[in-house]
């Protein structure tokens, strides 16, 4: 059972605001989706393990220094920047 409080709590964890007038609808939708997902609990436990699809492990590259992306290029996409850094204001 998904409650309004559950949705409010998950929203905080997800860093999302849910408006008061959206909360009932969203709770109902979440409840329906979770009920749908609950179908897996009827599945027998086969004991199959799953790690990753092609059973890869320890994917290392050669320990060679390669060129990084230039920071001035990276900063071009930032909404705000200053002195070669991302700028985060506490208030706006």
């Amino acid at each position: 059972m998904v409650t309004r409080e559950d949705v409010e709590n998950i929203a905080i964890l997800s860093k999302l605001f849910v408006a008061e007038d959206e909360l009932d609808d969203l709770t109902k939708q979440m409840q329906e989706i979770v009920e749908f997902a609950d179908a897996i609990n009827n599945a027998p436990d086969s004991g199959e393990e799953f790690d990753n699809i092609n059973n890869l492990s320890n994917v290392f590259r050669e320990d060679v220094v390669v060129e990084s992306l230039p920071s001035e290029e990276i900063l071009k996409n930032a909404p705000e920047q200053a002195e070669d850094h991302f700028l985060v204001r506490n208030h706006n």
Partner: protein
Amino acid sequence: MSEIKKIHDLLTSKQISCKELTEKYLKSIESDNGELNAYVNVTADEAFAQAEKVDAKLSKGEDIGLLEGVPMTVKDNISTKGVETTCCSKILTGYKPIYNATVWEKLENDGAVMLGKANMDEFAMGSSCETSYFGGATNPFNTKHCAGGSSGGVASAVGGNIAAYGLGSDTGGSIRQPASFCGMVGLKPTYGAVSRYGLIAYASSLDQIGPIAKTVEDVSIIYDAISDYDPKDSTSQGRQGGMTFDKVNNDIKGMKIGIAREYLEGVRDDVKEAVLNAVKVYESLGAEVIYFDMPALKFALPVYYIIACAEASSNLGRYDGIRYGFKTEHYNGTHDMMCRTRSEGFGAEVKRRILLGTYVLSAGYYDAYYKKAQNLRGTIVKAFDDAFTKCDFILAPTVPMTAFEMGHAVSDPIETYLTDICTVPVNIAGLPAVSVPCGFNDKGMPIGMQLIGNKFSEATILNAANAYEKAAPENFKETKWGVKL
């Protein structure tokens, strides 16, 4: 005939210059994109610059590659250096990647002419293209219907002849479903065959880039060009077993086709009939058909949504209004800034999936949902392993129905999830599958079937798909839109 080869012949025989060809496509985009809404960003300058290079080579009498000068499109979640890449989300408006996705780097080096970025469901989350911030792409067979999703823009552009082919991505069916809805061929490659570097992540263990084109040969040409080992993608394995193009015209006599009965349950009658007719075509070509059960498939859909949403909730944590894209205007403190940015920047479907993903990963629910889903993922992988001891490939419908009418999918999210039932198992098991047109319903809307192969058996499924295309060419139809070559 292969659209890419046709264009290649036109260019090399000098019947048209690459610039003229590019102009033709751009003009058609101008006249037809208003109704198809396949492109969200047209890159005419970049296209002409690339076309000029091709023409210069041609005028010097130099040879050009098959893909050189061929006009195409790229889904808006594939990074294109200096060209806005938004995932059709408000939160990435204005974002211009500073590097190319490996797939685009490869095609650009091969001389591909990108006409623009293609429409998609926001962050590839949707089955109708309508969760796009820019509105949905329509179906070239009937624009009252959607193009499908999430790579709806690519399928609409190719079906509407305003791109010769396109690159899409497939997390739970996002290449195959729109290809099926728009009467096109779409290949979801084996997980790891094509580099994901530069593909903006939705669910990393399921995402895979692949082509949508008009014919199986086209898809094979593009697959050969983009599949390769890439050290920048730690899950990359590259194409294994060599090129596919020299293997798509082989005899299929004696090939064993598997049909899992679960795939035919709940499928609409017209779709079922078209798929079973295709089985008859295969039998007439000398293939053998084997029926079996795969009970594990019953759990594929919830397993998919749990894993995909869990991974999405983590992948989409990066959108914080600090490093790229949209940022809210007024806020009080950094937590408030991030919450406002994300709440204003993401659409409803994306928020739903982030919330569900956070829920199934949160303390108290992790074991019951995420861990259990991972366990069942192993069961589904094993079921396919067993199936491929009995057959060379599995034949199934791509979607249980034909393209929905515009507006239908958004009105009931869960009902829409259910329509992904036939496509998601392939992503869960990391397998390759190609969707091929296999008929039309009584309203003239295309029906698609998919051929599912064992890992890295792209050549096998493309060969079988090509054999069908040659035996049933009536299912590959032109639409009224776009460029007539």
